């Protein structure tokens, strides 16, 4: 009897363990598939100029070199600037070098700078509001008000991002009669605030009550102990939340279509349209040129790497700040 029970228990344990492992595997398959696919195809777009250059229209003309300079401009040729396919002596277009299967040209530097600017300004809007709201919910709460705010935050963080885009489109873009990067930042801030607020609140609640008591026992007012003791203790967690918010903002496409519009050049005027990596991905995906389709994957890859890099940088920075005494 004893042996039977023991065996059954062992077996149940193994079955349950196997099922959990299988489910875990299923959960990470999409992640690995996406990263792998983006990496494989996006790698085709990678070159130095992809990071250092801005948009170039597709062209089959060879890149000018020292011994083969670009042909002189011919005013009679309507296509001279862009895409004259080489024509052989018989006057036939060589299909192998037509515009449609030309190699990718240009890069996404304008998109990288645009995304950093738009998401960065969005974070500047969202950080103070989100962190102070989180502090209020955790440290100074007035239960009824806090419940309402918490509920609104959860609804907002679950709502589709296009809603934020439409709202800013109506309230800002239409009023100013101008698409602009700063309008995009506002739309992203709407999406970032609930994330920052809720993470800040949760992380502050994890700080042991004894820390607050110690500060209170030394005659510190609540605001002082929050800033000097509670907030620093919760900082690593809050930073994670902030990075999550940045990643969410940097990856959003829908609100940007309605607010920043996009651009083909490097523009640092935040009151004018600007490029952004998700917008480039979106537009290049729809492009009829295979070279630009490849670049869409490349832009997606760069976006992923950008978020990852920011994450690592901020983590290293906060760990250093936490490891040293003042």
């Amino acid at each position, binding site marked *: 009897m004893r042996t039977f029970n023991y065996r059954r228990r062992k077996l149940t344990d193994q079955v349950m363990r196997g099922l959990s492992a299988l489910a875990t595997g299923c959960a990470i398959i999409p992640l690995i598939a996406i990263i792998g696919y983006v990496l494989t195809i996006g790698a085709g777009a990678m070159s130095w100029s992809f990071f250092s250059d801005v948009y170039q229209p597709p062209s089959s003309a060879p890149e000018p070199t020292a011994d083969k300079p670009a042909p002189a401009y011919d005013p009679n040729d309507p296509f001279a600037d862009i895409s004259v396919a080489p024509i052989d002596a018989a006057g036939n277009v060589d299909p192998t070098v037509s515009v449609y299967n030309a190699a990718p040209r240009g890069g996404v530097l304008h998109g990288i700078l645009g995304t950093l600017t738009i998401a960065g300004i969005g974070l500047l809007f969202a950080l103070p509001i989100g962190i102070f709201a989180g502090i209020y919910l955790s440290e100074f709460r007035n239960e009824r008000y806090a419940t309402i705010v918490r509920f609104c935050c959860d609804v907002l963080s679950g709502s589709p991002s296009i809603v934020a885009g439409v709202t800013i489109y109506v309230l800002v873009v239409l009023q100013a009669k101008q698409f602009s990067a700063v309008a995009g930042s506002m739309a992203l801030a709407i999406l970032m605030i609930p994330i920052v607020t809720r993470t800040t609140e949760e992380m502050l609640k994890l700080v042991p009550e004894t820390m607050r008591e110690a500060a209170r*026992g030394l005659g510190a*007012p609540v605001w002082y102990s929050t800033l000097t*003791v509670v907030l620093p203790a919760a900082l690593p967690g809050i930073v994670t939340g902030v990075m999550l918010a940045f990643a969410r903002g940097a990856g959003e496409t829908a609100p940007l279509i309605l607010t920043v519009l996009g651009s083909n050049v490097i523009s640092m005027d935040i009151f004018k349209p600007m490029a952004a990596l998700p917008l480039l991905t979106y537009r290049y995906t729809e492009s009829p040129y295979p070279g630009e389709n490849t670049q869409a994957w490349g832009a997606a890859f760069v976006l992923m790497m950008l978020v990852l890099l920011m994450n690592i940088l901020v983590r290293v920075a906060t760990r250093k700040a936490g490891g040293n005494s003042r």
Partner: protein
Amino acid sequence: MEHAMTLTRGIGFGDLVAQRTKISQLSVATENKIEMLHFGFHYGAFKAVHDVTMAMPTNRVTAIIGPSGCGKSTLLRSINRMHDATEGAHAEGILRLDAMNVYDAAVDSVLLRRRVGMVFQRPNPFQLSIFENVAYGLRVLGIRHRGTLAERVEQSLRRAALWDEVKDRLHSSFGTALSGGQQQRLCIARTIATNPEVILMDEPCSALDPIASLKIEDLIYDLREQFTIVIVTHNMQQAARVSDFTAFMLMNREKRYGELIESGPTDQLFTKPHDKRTEDYISGQFG
């Protein structure tokens, strides 16, 4: 007073009691720092402490002893209004610090806590350097001058008998990196740095090993020259060793609230208790 200061440690219980008698004779003339008159404390509808009338003399150590749940921690924490943040907590009767009624509406609890410091059951240093831990209360008071801060920090660490152990790593080591006993002495240094008039200690040794506990007891003994100390403890031997006065509390089994059974000079309470329940408790018959 001389007798009290020259008392040696580590002697037998009987000797201690004999010497304490002299202290209590001396202390008859001392004035009271804290006085409670029919003081009670509630958490909402639940009454935790009922009708306590006692006094805590200036520059003496007063111990509050009693079994778990008898309200001794509640009583201690009510002295500097640590319960203010708790929903529905309120006091009744009078609790006086010098001439000030602590529960008067005009008393600012933040300013009160600058006069009445607190050391907690578990050492709770901040996630800051050793220096910043001790300087915290000073910074709260608005002291920014570097020289003053350094001087006060050193002085406090010396008084807490921690200076020699940490002087080389004041800025490089976190307060949380110290051992448990060192952390508790750091917390005491942090409390005395602001020169409060009263120090409340809520079972300060219960999370420490016996050797670390003894160091804290030595410290308490030295500190009463300058501070009025109120200490809650489970440990009767500790109460007998460190305190001049002792209050014994017990939970009323019918009404479920804590009440004061008796209070008086420690030697008297431990040798000639007036109440049968005190006698039972200190002779280990229950609790």
